[in-house]
C-alpha cells in the first residue's frame, strides 16, 4: 500500500498501479478515454492530465497523464489545479473539432462517455470555425452499426477487438488526423465478441444495431439485474424494457465472472422475449386441433383432468431452479425427469462428482485468466461457452505479465507489456475433433475422434503419473508443462457427450494433485441451468419418460422442446397420445401436440435462480410485468397442484424460494437479499432511472388515469423511479449503473470496491457445491471402441455460437448469423469423395443435402454435424453413410431482407 496526496487530501492506494486507477478507485472524477480497466493504458488520448509535485515545497509541479504514472508512496498530485483543468478542457475542445452535430440522432446520446467528459471538463461553446472531416461508413453486419464521423481516435475498438478478443477483421487505417477504424471492406464483423464494441467505444461510432431499430434512451429503460440465458457461464446482464418490449441487453459487471464483456449470443440473443410466436394465453386443444383461448379456469380444469391419474414431469435446463423444483413437487421426485438426455446428464453428474472431490478447484473466469498452462480436452469453448474462450485468451498472456514484471514494466503499461513479450505466450494445448477459434493462440493442437481424444488424455495422465516418462511426444510435452506450471487448468465439457472424456480430464487433475500441483477443473455444461436441474434428483431418465408418455401416461412438460433434445422418432411416438400439458414461452413442435398449453414467463418476466458451471447459484429478477396471461411457471404449477389437491401451492416467489431452499440448498436464500431489503431504512431500489419519462402519457391512449405502479412483493425493487441505487448495496441488487456526471456504463467504477475489482456490495452468487472432502480416486476409463467399417463415418456434434442454442435461435438478430446447414468433412475424406467446400453431400437420415465445409483438422472417418439447426434433426450419435449430391446449390441461410422482426 502507498499513501498519496490528491489535492491536499490523503488516500491509500496500491503501489505500482497507475494513478488514474488509484484516483477512480477513490470514486473521484477524472476524465479519460483510451484507458480501459481490462485493457490497461496506452496514453493516447491525453485526457487524464494531472499535476504531480516533487515534494510539499513544490508549488509549480508538472503536468502528466495519470494513466501513465505509477503510484509511489507519498506522491503529491492535483486533479483540480487550474493548469490541469485547462489542459483537459483544451484536449476535449480539439476532440470535438470534427465531432458531428449528431447527439439527438445518435444511439449513444444520454449514455455517452464523450458527452459526460465534455460536460465534466466544462467545454461548452464551439470556437473552431473550420470545416469538419467526414467519413463513409461501413455495413458491419446485423449486430453493429457504424458512424465513423463520431470517432475521437482513442483506439479502444481495435485494442479490444484485435488485441483482447483476437479478432482479425477490424483495423485502424490511415495516419495523423485521418485515422479510420473499420474493416478492409464492408462485411459482418466475424468475432463473436463484436457486440462489446458498443460498450467499449466511448462515443457513438459502434452502436447496437438491433436496439437502434426501436431505440430508447438509457434513462427511459426499465431494468433489473439478471443472468444471461445463452449458455452455462451465467454472465450477469441488464435486460432493459420499454413499452412492454425487451429492448436490449448490456453487460452487468461481475468481478469473478464476465467482468466488462459479454459474447454476442448473450447480447443479441434475447429478442425471443418479444417474438411473435410467444404463447400469451392458456389454451385447450379442441377436437379440430386448434387451441381455444380465453378461459384460464377451464384450461386449468382440463389440465387437472388430464393429470388426474398421476403424471410424470419433464423439467428443463433452461427453466429456473425454482420452476424445476415446483414441477418436481407437483409430480414427485420419482416421476421427475430433468429433461436432459441421459448421455449428457451422465456427463454432467460425473463432472459434479469431480467438482466435489477434495482439492479440485473450479475456477471463476477471473481465475481462468490467471492460469499459466491450459489443456482444453474435447470442448470447443469458443462455441459452447464463448465468454470462457475470451478469458482463455487473456490467460495465455500470463507469461507476458511475468516477463514484464521481471523487466520492471508495470503490468498496466499495455504497449510495453505487449512489446516486451512479442509473441511469447503461456501454454495452451487444444485437443478437439475440429478447428476451434482458439487455435491461433494455442501452443499446439491435436485432433481426433472422441475415442482418440480419450486415449490422448489417458496418455497425458499416465505421463504425469510416471516421473520417468519422456516428454518428446505431444502428450509428454503437455504432461511436463502441466506438472511445472504454477496454475494449470483443465477444460472439458459436455458437448461431445462423452463420460470418458470428463473422467480422463478428472484423472489428469488427480494426477497433478499427486504431484502437489494445484488442479483447476473447468467443466462446460450446455445450458444456463444444466447444472441446476441436474442437482434436482429426478427418478426418470428422458428416454424412460418418453417411453411412459408413449404408453399413454400423462405428463407435464416444462419449458422444453423435446425435439431439441431427443431423436425425432422417439419424440414423435411419445407425443402421439397427446396426453400432456406444456408450460412454455414460445410455440414449438412439442407445444403443438399438447392437450393444454400454459404461457410461461421468460427470464425477463420473472424472478428466479440459475446455477452456472461453477455451481454458482445466481438470482435474476423480474425486469417487467408480462403481458396478458403470461405468468411464471411455478405459479401455473401451483394452480395445477391446487386443482389436483396434491403437491405444494405457493402464492409468492418468496414462498417458492423458501420451500425450495428448505428441500434443496439453503444457500439459495442467501444468494440475494430478501424482498424486505431496503437502502437506508425505507428506500427500495428503483428499476427506472430518476429521469424516466412519459409516465403520464405512455398509457394515456388506453386509460387517461395513470395506473398505480405495481407494488413488488417479491423483490427489493420498485416498478418506478422511486428509491435509491447508491452503488454500495448488495452486489446482486444493482438494476442499472449510473452516477452523477457519469451517464455511460463507465460509471461502473463507482459501484466497485476498486477499479476492476469486486463490486462494492460483493460479487453476486454462491456456490452450491463446495468440496466434500472425498479423496481423489482415479476413474477407470474405458476407451470407447468405434471400429470403422463399411465406409461409414463417425458423427461428431458441432456446437455453434450462433445456431445451437434453442432460445437465442429465435432471436431475430441471431437468426441472421445462423449458418446454412452444413457438414464438416476432413480434407482426406473430401478428396476421397471428390467434393470441395461449397458442394453438396447427402447424409444418411437427413432429408436435405448439406453444404460441405472442409476442416483442416478433422480426422478422416469423422464428420461434424451442427447441433440445433432446424434442417438437421436431433439424432443419436452414431455412424452414417454419405453420398454426393451433384445438383446441390449453395444457399445463403437467411436473406436479411426477409428476417421478420420477432
Amino acid at each position, binding site marked *: 500500500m502507498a499513501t498519496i496526496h490528491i489535492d491536499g487530501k490523503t488516500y491509500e492506494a496500491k503501489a505500482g498501479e497507475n494513478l488514474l486507477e488509484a484516483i477512480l478507485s477513490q470514486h473521484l472524477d477524472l476524465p479519460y478515454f483510451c484507458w480501459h480497466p481490462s485493457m490497461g493504458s496506452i496514453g493516447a488520448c491525453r485526457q487524464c492530465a494531472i499535476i504531480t509535485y516533487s515534494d510539499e515545497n513544490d508549488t509549480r509541479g508538472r503536468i502528466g497523464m495519470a494513466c501513465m504514472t505509477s503510484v509511489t508512496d507519498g506522491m503529491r498530485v492535483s486533479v483540480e489545479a487550474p493548469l490541469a483543468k485547462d489542459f483537459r478542457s483544451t484536449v476535449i475542445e480539439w476532440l470535438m473539432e470534427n465531432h*458531428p*452535430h*449528431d*447527439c*439527438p*440522432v445518435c444511439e449513444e*446520446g*444520454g449514455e455517452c462517455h464523450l458527452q459526460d467528459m465534455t460536460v465534466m471538463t466544462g467545454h461548452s461553446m464551439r470556437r473552431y470555425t*473550420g*470545416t*469538419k*472531416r*467526414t*467519413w*463513409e*461508413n461501413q455495413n458491419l453486419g446485423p449486430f453493429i452499426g457504424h*458512424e465513423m*464521423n*463520431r470517432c475521437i481516435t482513442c483506439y479502444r475498438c481495435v485494442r479490444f477487438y484485435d488485441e483482447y478478443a483476437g479478432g482479425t477483421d477490424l483495423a485502424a*487505417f*490511415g*495516419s*495523423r488526423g*485521418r485515422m*479510420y477504424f*473499420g474493416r478492409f471492406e464492408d462485411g459482418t464483423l466475424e468475432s463473436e465478441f463484436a457486440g462489446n464494441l458498443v460498450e467499449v467505444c466511448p462515443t457513438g461510432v459502434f452502436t447496437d444495431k438491433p436496439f437502434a*431499430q*426501436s*431505440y*430508447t*434512451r438509457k*434513462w*427511459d429503460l426499465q431494468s433489473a439485474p439478471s443472468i444471461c440465458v445463452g449458455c452455462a457461464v451465467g454472465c450477469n446482464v441488464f435486460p432493459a424494457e*420499454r*413499452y412492454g418490449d425487451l429492448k436490449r441487453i448490456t453487460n452487468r459487471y461481475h468481478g469473478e465472472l464476465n467482468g466488462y464483456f459479454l459474447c454476442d449470443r448473450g447480447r443479441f440473443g434475447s429478442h425471443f422475449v418479444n417474438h411473435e410466436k410467444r404463447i400469451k394465453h392458456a389454451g385447450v386443444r379442441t377436437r379440430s386441433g386448434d387451441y381455444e383461448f380465453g378461459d384460464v379456469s377451464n384450461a386449468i380444469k382440463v389440465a387437472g383432468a388430464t393429470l388426474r391419474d398421476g403424471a410424470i414431469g419433464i423439467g428443463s435446463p433452461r427453466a429456473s431452479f425454482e420452476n424445476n423444483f415446483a414441477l418436481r413437487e407437483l409430480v414427485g421426485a420419482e416421476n421427475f425427469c430433468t429433461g436432459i438426455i441421459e448421455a449428457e446428464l451422465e456427463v454432467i453428474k460425473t463432472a459434479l462428482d469431480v467438482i466435489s472431490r477434495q482439492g479440485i478447484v473450479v475456477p471463476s473466469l477471473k481465475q481462468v485468466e490467471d492460469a499459466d498452462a491450459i489443456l482444453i480436452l474435447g470442448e470447443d469453448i469458443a462455441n459452447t461457452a464463448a465468454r470462457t474462450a475470451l478469458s482463455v485468451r487473456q490467460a495465455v498472456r500470463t507469461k507476458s505479465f511475468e516477463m514484464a514484471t521481471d523487466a520492471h514494466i508495470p503490468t498496466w503499461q499495455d504497449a510495453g507489456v505487449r512489446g516486451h513479450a512479442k509473441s511469447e505466450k503461456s501454454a495452451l494445448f487444444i485437443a478437439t475433433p475440429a478447428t476451434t477459434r482458439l487455435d491461433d493462440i494455442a501452443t499446439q493442437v491435436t485432433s481426433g475422434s472422441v475415442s482418440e481424444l480419450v486415449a490422448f488424455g489417458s496418455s497425458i495422465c499416465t505421463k504425469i503419473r510416471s516421473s520417468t516418462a519422456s516428454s518428446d511426444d505431444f502428450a509428454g510435452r503437455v504432461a511436463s508443462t502441466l506438472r511445472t506450471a504454477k496454475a494449470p487448468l483443465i477444460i472439458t465439457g459436455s458437448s461431445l457427450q462423452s463420460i470418458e472424456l470428463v473422467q480422463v480430464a478428472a484423472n489428469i487433475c488427480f494426477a497433478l494433485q499427486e504431484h502437489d500441483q494445484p488442479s483447476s477443473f473447468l467443466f462446460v455444461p450446455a445450458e444456463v441451468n444444466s447444472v441446476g436441474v441436474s442437482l434436482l434428483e429426478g427418478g426418470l431418465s428422458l428416454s424412460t419418460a418418453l417411453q411412459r408418455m408413449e404408453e399413454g401416461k400423462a405428463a407435464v412438460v416444462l419449458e422444453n422442446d423435446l425435439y431439441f433434445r431427443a431423436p425425432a422418432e422417439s419424440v414423435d411416438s411419445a407425443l402421439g397420445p397427446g396426453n400432456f400439458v406444456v408450460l412454455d414461452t414460445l410455440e414449438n413442435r412439442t407445444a403443438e401436440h399438447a392437450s393444454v398449453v400454459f404461457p410461461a414467463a421468460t427470464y425477463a418476466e420473472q424472478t428466479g435462480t440459475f446455477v452456472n458451471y461453477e455451481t454458482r447459484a445466481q438470482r435474476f429478477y423480474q425486469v417487467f410485468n408480462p403481458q396478458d396471461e403470461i405468468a411464471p411457471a411455478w405459479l401455473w404449477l401451483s394452480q395445477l397442484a391446487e386443482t389436483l389437491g396434491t403437491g405444494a401451492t405457493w402464492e409468492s416467489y418468496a414462498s417458492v424460494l423458501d420451500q425450495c431452499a428448505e428441500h434443496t440448498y439453503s444457500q439459495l436464500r442467501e444468494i440475494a437479499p430478501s424482498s424486505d431489503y431496503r437502502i437506508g431504512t425505507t428506500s427500495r431500489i428503483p428499476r427506472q432511472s430518476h*429521469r*424516466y*419519462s*412519459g*409516465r*403520464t*402519457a*405512455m398509457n*394515456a*391512449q388506453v386509460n*387517461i388515469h395513470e395506473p398505480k405502479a405495481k407494488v413488488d412483493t417479491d423483490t427489493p425493487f420498485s416498478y418506478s423511479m422511486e428509491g435509491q441505487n447508491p452503488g454500495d448495496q448488495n452486489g446482486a441488487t444493482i438494476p442499472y449503473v449510473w452516477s452523477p456526471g457519469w451517464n455511460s456504463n463507465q460509471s461502473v467504477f463507482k459501484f466497485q470496491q476498486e477499479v476492476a475489482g469486486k463490486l462494492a456490495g460483493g460479487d453476486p452468487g454462491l456456490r452450491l457445491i463446495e468440496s466434500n472432502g472425498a479423496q481423489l480416486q482415479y476413474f477407470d476409463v474405458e476407451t470407447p471402441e468405434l471400429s470403422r467399417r463399411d465406409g461409414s463415418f463417425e458423427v461428431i456434434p458441432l456446437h455453434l455460437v450462433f445456431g445451437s442454442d434453442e432460445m437465442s435461435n429465435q432471436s431475430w438478430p441471431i437468426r441472421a448469423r445462423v449458418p446454412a446447414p452444413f457438414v464438416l468433412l476432413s480434407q482426406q475424406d473430401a478428396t476421397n469423395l471428390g467434393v470441395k467446400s461449397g458442394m453438396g453431400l447427402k447424409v444418411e437420415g437427413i432429408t436435405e443435402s448439406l453444404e460441405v465445409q472442409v476442416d483442416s483438422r478433422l480426422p478422416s472417418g469423422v464428420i461434424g454435424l451442427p447441433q440445433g439447426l432446424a434442417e438437421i434433426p436431433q439424432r443419436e450419435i452414431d455412424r452414417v453413410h454419405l453420398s454426393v449430391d451433384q445438383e446441390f446449390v449453395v444457399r445463403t441461410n437467411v436473406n436479411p431482407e426477409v428476417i421478420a422482426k420477432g
Partner: protein
Amino acid sequence: MLSQIKTLWTVFVHLFKRNETVQYPEEMPYQAPRYRGRIILTRDPDGEERCVACNLCAVACPVDCIALQKTEKDEDGRWYPEFFRINFSRCIMCGMCEEACPTYAIQLTPDFELCEFDRNNMVYEKEHLLIDGTGKYPDYSFWHVAGKTIDGKDKGEAQNENKPEDVRSLLP
C-alpha cells in the same frame, strides 16, 4: 380625507381611458407569437417531419406528459417518431419541451383554448400535433447540420463539412 379624494379622482380619470376588457370569445385578445399555449410538431423547410424522436422533450417534461418511440423511415436514414403522444390533461404549458428540442420540431403556440368535456380527448397523438409548416423557425433544418446521411444529403454535404476522406489514400 385627502387620500379618498385622490382615489375618487383616479377612478374619474379612468372613465376616459381605453377599455382593456375584450369581449372574449367574440373578440380575440392579441397573443404574442411566443405565448406558451397548445403544443405542435412542425416540419422542416423540405416538408419532412422535424422531430427526430430524440426524447429530449420527454425527459425535460416536468409532468412526464410526452411519450414517443423512435423508428426509421425505409432507406431514408431519417429518424422519426413511430408515435408521439402528449397528454394535455397533464401539460402545464411550461415550454421546457420547446427549449429542449434540438430541431425546433416541438413548438408552443398562442392557442390556449384547450377545453374538453371528456379528458380522453386531451390525449393528442402525432396526427393531431403535426402541422404542415415550419412554425416560428422557417429556415432551420436539423438534418442539414447533422452528420448522419439521409436521402438527398450524403456524407460531406452537411453544413461545414469536408468531402469524405479517402481511406485508401497514402498521402500524409
